[in-house]
């Protein structure tokens, strides 16, 4: 399986620089459906529509805007956006190392792998190996898709894992309730402990499956026996063609919008 690169650049620590690519570590196991036009079964593509001209807008006519007042926007070009943090958009500079155990998992956001680019194999392997032996993680900041991330680099089975971390300022405080200070009667304590000990196992995450996906696959298996598939008309354009990064950015902002509700 060829690994798709999300980003390419250089890791640096002190005077050592390692060319790398960022790749996925997680492949969401979703069963995905395609939106179709019920009249002709042609797949639908997401396009941007200009309400003023009532026309579809090609990618090179789209620009990002920040709303400073209702319906008043400041346009920013890609070059301007990249100029915000030029030192971090192509470099992951490890400014310090920490002991791995010190990181509270509450900071973990999303993991990726880094793989070496041509010529970087040896230095990459060295960094992975010395981090493994010392059980350390490297801390760095870098900018990915216009967001500056604090990241932890760790070593795992010879590979470098890059985990984005939440900023400390974004961690919500725990709630203090008087109940938490309450005493636990010894008999209740030993009852719960016993109940837990009876249910101790070795963790095998592989035995837990996504039930939803199983059901969807079953549904599809049933459908495929009952119905013949429909054929989409040939359009002459590659399927799903369109501004891929734009669509991803949109989905991301839609998701955020929903979450904030």
């Amino acid at each position, binding site marked *: 399986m060829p690994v798709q690169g999300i980003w390419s650049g250089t890791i640096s620590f002190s005077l050592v620089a390692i060319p790398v690519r960022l790749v996925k570590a997680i492949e969401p196991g979703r069963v995905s459906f395609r939106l179709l*036009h019920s009249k*002709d079964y042609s797949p639908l593509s997401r396009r941007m529509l200009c309400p003023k001209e009532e026309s579809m807008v090609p990618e090179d006519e789209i*620009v990002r805007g920040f709303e400073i007042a209702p319906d008043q926007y400041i346009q920013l070009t890609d070059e301007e956006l990249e100029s*915000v943090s030029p030192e971090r958009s192509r*470099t992951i500079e490890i400014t310090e190392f920490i002991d791995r155990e010190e990181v509270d998992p509450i900071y973990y956001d999303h993991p990726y792998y880094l793989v070496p680019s041509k010529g970087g194999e*040896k230095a990459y392997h060295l960094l992975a190996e010395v981090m493994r032996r010392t059980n350390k993680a490297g801390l760095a900041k870098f900018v990915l898709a216009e967001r500056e991330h604090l990241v932890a680099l760790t070593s795992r089975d010879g590979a470098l894992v890059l985990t984005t971390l939440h900023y400390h300022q974004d961690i919500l405080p725990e*709630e203090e309730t008087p109940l938490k200070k309450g005493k636990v009667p010894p008999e209740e304590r030993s009852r719960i402990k016993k109940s837990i000990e009876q249910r101790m196992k070795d963790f095998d995450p592989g035995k837990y499956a996504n039930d939803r996906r199983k059901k969807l696959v079953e549904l599809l298996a049933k459908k495929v026996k009952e119905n013949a598939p429909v054929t989409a008309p040939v359009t002459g354009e590659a399927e799903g063609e369109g501004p891929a990064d734009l669509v991803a950015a949109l989905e991301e902002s839609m998701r955020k919008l929903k979450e904030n509700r």
Partner: protein
Amino acid sequence: MAGTTLWKGYVHFGDTDVPVRLRASVREERTQFHLLHKRDGARLRQQMVCAYEKKPVPGKEQTKGFELEEGKYLLIDPEEIEQTAPESSRMIEVHEFVKTGQVDSLLLDRLYYLEPDLADIRGPEFNALVKALEELHVAGICTWTMRKRSYLGALQVRGKTLRLSTLRYADELILPTSLNLQKVPLSDKELKIGMELLEKLTAPFAPEKFQNEHQEKLREMIAKKARGEKILILPPRRLEPTESDQLLQALEASLRKAA
């Protein structure tokens, strides 16, 4: 400000039920951009377009299909998809307890605080659960349903706080072995100096000292542009990779620099 309650229910195992509330542990704010039409500055709207007719398609003419092979779709009624959604429930069912060290950090997804549901708590069961998980160093592996989705999770204690992390399914994790990384021989000297260098560059983990500077600078740039000032275009910094035969020298020089 503390987050609001996202969900209420019970942690259940054996004959124990603990009323709990789920709260977010993280809140992120980010600069939100909109997509504009360069020419007229109009804010763009997203529209589904028929790839064949090249025309906008209204919602009532949209249907769903699963692609069996290129251009061949099995039609699925969206209602049938809806029916596969899990039934709602108020129970976080703990299936087993495992040593906390066995929970792979790459599987950890979102983390929530689990607070006692004070409206419903009857006795000392919440505190007893926290104490027991802490003393035994275990995590409860559990499943629950929230907002029409089923989740796999790990119930853990850190400090005195009960936390619930959603876990990714094991088959969603890409294994490092699939990256086909080749081992490159390293000399003892390179390893020794590398480790020394890491020790020299080690500091205590102090997450509070890292701020999102980019966000600040981005806002400044927007303000500058709003005032009509010119934005200076800066190319991204690109570093020259260390050549393999220069690695030892680079490590030695780094060590001298760190000393």
